[in-house]
């Protein structure tokens, strides 16, 4: 894994990013509907609307607007939010840590349980517990994170009220964070009551996000493991005195992870997209929640900035997944 490779990969991502930026920009302006008219409501006069339009540069041609937007973007300026009257970059930077911590925990949960399910399912190959695992995966995979969130609220928040269903942590605890990475920071600063509260509040949103990813990853990994179990090196390992479980996790697993990661990589980006609704449902103060507010307020610069942020996150996740695959498979390293 060399630097040239990394740089190459990043350069390859640039056109995708440029495409994402352009398309959002055009979509927001070409699709029928007038954001300014919606922003001002029915009471506004023609003159008011024209003035506002000029203020946000919306009276220029689309091409002209785009050039201005791009030239600002290159200097790192994402513009000013219409509804919050703050710098978009700063706004997003403040909320991003919240989402990142949630997403990382959700991914860990998803991957951890996916591994357990896939390994157990493979271990029970051809016996009835395997069907149980398959059935569980089949039901879990069909239900999107949004419905999981609502169901979990109903079950663990209302029917058996043992879990908090709103916010990032107990409001009674005061914690002025420097970085907004509550989880990491509270651990480092030894404020474990904060850690506990943050984790506790994170359970339901993180599990809602994790379940679909867990199911799809488990399904893909299990079928890759099954294919791997029929390979000759596994047969050979079975004659060499390794136990059944050991053959699976120390011989087949790593090989199965290569195609499984490649196949389920996209799903990791879906999890990030899922934060939009899940954060909304749980009142979680991340960029997903912010995105819905931005849309409701027709805050074009903020929407634009958030879509860009999501696109960058997606591309980074894809990059990490590619790196992970090259790390796993020595045959890919020296090409």
């Amino acid at each position, binding site marked *: 894994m060399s630097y040239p490779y990394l740089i190459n990969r990043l350069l390859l991502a640039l056109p995708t990013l440029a495409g994402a930026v352009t398309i959002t920009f055009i979509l927001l302006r070409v699709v029928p509907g007038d954001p300014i008219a919606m922003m001002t409501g029915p009471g506004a006069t023609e003159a008011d609307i024209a003035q506002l339009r000029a203020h946000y540069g919306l009276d220029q041609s689309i091409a002209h607007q785009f050039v201005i937007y791009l030239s600002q973007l290159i200097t790192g300026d994402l513009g000013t939010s219409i509804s919050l009257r703050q710098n978009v970059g700063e706004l997003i930077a403040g909320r991003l840590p919240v989402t990142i911590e949630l997403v990382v925990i959700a991914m860990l949960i998803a991957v951890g349980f996916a591994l357990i399910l896939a390994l157990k399912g493979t271990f029970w190959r051809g016996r009835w517990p395997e069907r149980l695992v398959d059935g569980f995966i089949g039901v879990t995979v069909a239900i999107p994170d949004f*419905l999981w969130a609502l169901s979990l609220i*109903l079950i663990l928040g209302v029917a058996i009220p043992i879990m908090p269903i709103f916010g990032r942590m107990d409001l009674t605890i005061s914690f002025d964070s420097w970085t907004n990475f509550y989880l990491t920071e509270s651990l480092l600063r030894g404020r474990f009551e904060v850690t506990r509260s943050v984790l506790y509040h994170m359970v339901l949103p993180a599990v809602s996000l994790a379940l679909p990813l867990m199911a799809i990853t488990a399904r893909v990994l299990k079928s890759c493991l099954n294919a791997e179990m029929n390979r000759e090196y596994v047969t050979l390992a079975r004659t060499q005195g390794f136990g059944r479980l050991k053959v699976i996790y120390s011989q087949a697993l790593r090989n199965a992870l290569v195609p499984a990661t490649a196949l389920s990589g996209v799903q990791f980006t879906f999890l990030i997209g899922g934060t939009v609704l899940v954060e909304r449902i749980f009142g979680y103060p991340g960029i997903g929640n912010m995105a819905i507010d931005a*849309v409701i307020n027709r805050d074009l610069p903020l929407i634009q900035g958030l879509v860009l942020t999501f696109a960058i996150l997606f591309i980074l996740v894809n990059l990490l997944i590619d790196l992970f695959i090259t790390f796993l498979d020595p045959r890919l390293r020296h090409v």
Partner: protein
Amino acid sequence: MSDGRADLPLTYRIVHEPRALFGLCVLGLMFLAAVLAPWLSPHDPLEQDLLSSFLPPSWKENGDPVFFLGTDNLGRDIASRLIYGARTALIVALIAATMAALLGTVLGMLAGFYGGKTDMLISRAVDIWMSFPAVLLSIVLVAVMGAGLHAVIIAIVIIDWTRFCRVIRAETMVQKERDYVSSAVTIGLTRVRILFQEVFPNLVPLLIVLLTLEMGIAIVVETILSFVGLSVASDTPTWGNLIQEGRQYIHQAPWLLGLPVACVVMAVLGLNALGDGIKEVIDPETRQ
């Protein structure tokens, strides 16, 4: 495994696949509810009865058998609202999924069949599309177009054509290498004719599976947009609107949230099971 049954008609085998059967039942129920809504609903879904607001389902304490599944904050009948909600869900699912399938399939077939520049262009577009958070994109689209059922449908089509495009492209590339294509070339059929007359029929089974799955997704997207307040007018009974309203009274009247969530979950599970079941039945054929 199914070689003994391969000669039986496809419909017979689909009906005898347990998952597909379950899915068909769910879909059938939704159809019935959608078509017969005016006759099936015990009440007018919009009729308010403030004297009997927040009634629990009839089997619970204080329940009123007239309002079988209870009433909401304005005393509207939940059962009737759910039945009418099925109508919206089904309309969106059918129209949006079909249109997304149409767009995605044509582009996917072109990319897979012609390769080269066409393929590069379309595949690149798919890549870019996939780098958006789909949910956010749909919300943005509907916000800009203005709320309403047509906007919801357009948003679903604009976002989800890529699902069809990717899969159909790959399958077209596989089909292209088959013997029947080269023999069609040798007897001098034009490329367009080969693509649509010879290759397309072989894509149909796969397309049906994708379409079924997409209907489930469309129902969820509609629910999500209603939930965010961007679908049809908020007093129209859709499952998403019911969920949105129910969420405000979650401790007071949890059934207001629970019942529509259960409906959406059933619909999604059913459509998924149907897709999986059909795939299971036709898979040996597509593999040959």
